[in-house]
């Protein structure tokens, strides 16, 4: 009888686990490194993201090779010469939404601050980013926009194309999470 009780508890724990995770694999991340000489604004529509509503832990992951550029040659150079997608195929963010206890499921936009570690090109950095979180009946939408300096991640721009690529890159994130 004791054993049955144990199983019942475990079963409950599994159930609760499946209720608190919100996930997507089709999030969108764009970045903009445009200069007056060149438009560089690729889109990645295959961004994975998971949010643990129990504690506000937030994780992003994306393949760098999924960024689609307007020009195929640019895309190849991005992967081969800049982010080196064969050596560092993924970029990740592992973080925590601050003051998660204040979060309410009320359908209106709430400003949040997320703190965590972002890894691009194999280099990890601590960042703090402002974002907006919005809930609907069954989904949670997150959006944010922030700047990164690509030299911080060990990505150097050759002198020859320095005028064409911006060293500060504006990143925009939009994800809609569904219950797992």
């Amino acid at each position, binding site marked *: 009888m004791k*054993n049955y009780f*144990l*199983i019942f508890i*475990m*079963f409950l*724990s*599994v159930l609760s*686990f499946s209720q608190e*995770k919100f*996930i997507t*694999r089709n999030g969108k991340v764009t970045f903009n490194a445009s200069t007056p000489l*060149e438009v560089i604004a690729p889109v990645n529509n295959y961004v*994975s*993201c*998971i949010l*643990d509503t129990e504690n506000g*832990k937030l*994780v992003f*992951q994306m*393949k760098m*090779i999924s960024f689609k550029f*307007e*020009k*195929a*040659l640019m895309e*190849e*150079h991005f*992967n*081969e*010469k800049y982010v*080196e*997608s*064969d*050596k560092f*195929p993924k970029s*990740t963010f*592992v973080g925590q939404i601050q003051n998660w206890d204040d979060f309410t499921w009320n359908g209106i936009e709430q400003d949040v601050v997320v703190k965590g570690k972002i890894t691009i090109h194999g280099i990890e950095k601590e960042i703090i980013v402002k974002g907006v979180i919005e809930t609907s009946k069954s989904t949670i939408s997150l959006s944010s926009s922030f700047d990164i300096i690509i030299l911080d991640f060990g990505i150097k721009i*050759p002198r*020859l*194309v320095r005028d*064409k690529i911006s060293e500060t890159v504006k990143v925009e994130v939009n994800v809609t999470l569904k219950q*797992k």
Partner: protein
Amino acid sequence: MNRIIVFLSCIFFSFSSFSQEDLLSFLNDDNENVLTFATFKSTKIINLQSVEQTNKNELNFVISHRFGALNSGIENLYGLDYGSIRMSFDYGITDDITVGLARSSSYKVIDASVKGRLITQGKNDFPFTIAMYSAVFYDTLSSLLATEDMLKNDFSFTHQLMIARKVNSNLSLQISPALTSYNFLSPYPWTLLVNEKMYTLGIGGRYKVSRSVSINSEWIPIFMTNSNLIHPFKNKDFINSFSVGCDIETGGHVFQLFLTNSETMFERGFLNETLGSWKSGGVHFGFNISRPFNFN
């Protein structure tokens, strides 16, 4: 009964321990294989076609030059006074199919080609990228030069298979067997058509020395004509093409600078009709410059 309970509890424990794991592991999917890209910087290694394709809806304009032979002396500035040129236009119908049209000043040859990629390295863990290339050459001078004792060869064909492997991010190797078919025809209609076939085996590679510069080399031995095997080193009838050079990539262009003993720039020519000898300095300085234009 006890056994079943232990079994079930094992399963549940594994679930609950799973939930404790890092959230990142949730996001890893099984489909992790990535197709290899940028095996070579350009659609050519030097003379030889590489497995690289012109991208979809892109027109790749390649302008190539071969100067005269280095051993032509100071009075010709070691060959720089003289040069032959090839202009080629390649258009990517899809990312895997390219059609091309080109003209070379040597022998006044116009060629039309089609290049297709069959499989890319990394797809289902396949170790190679395989592509094929077929071209037809129209020799505009052939008919003019043909006399009673000289056969004309208006049309000739080359079919080539390219098998390449990007060993690591710096080193790529390629092997390219090719068949060239000549159709010799007397200018008089009562004589027979003579078909001659030449088989070559191109071997090439590149090594990246920095992220914008690579060293390239290729060697193309002729190993068979019709059904006669030919020793790649000990034959007096043919000279094998050998080239060495570098690729320099700027934002939109790729510059290829090299030394080669083949003066002709179309496949039939440099695969089978190389005349210069490295030993006696019959080597030409040359370059290819490619520039893609986007039609998206």
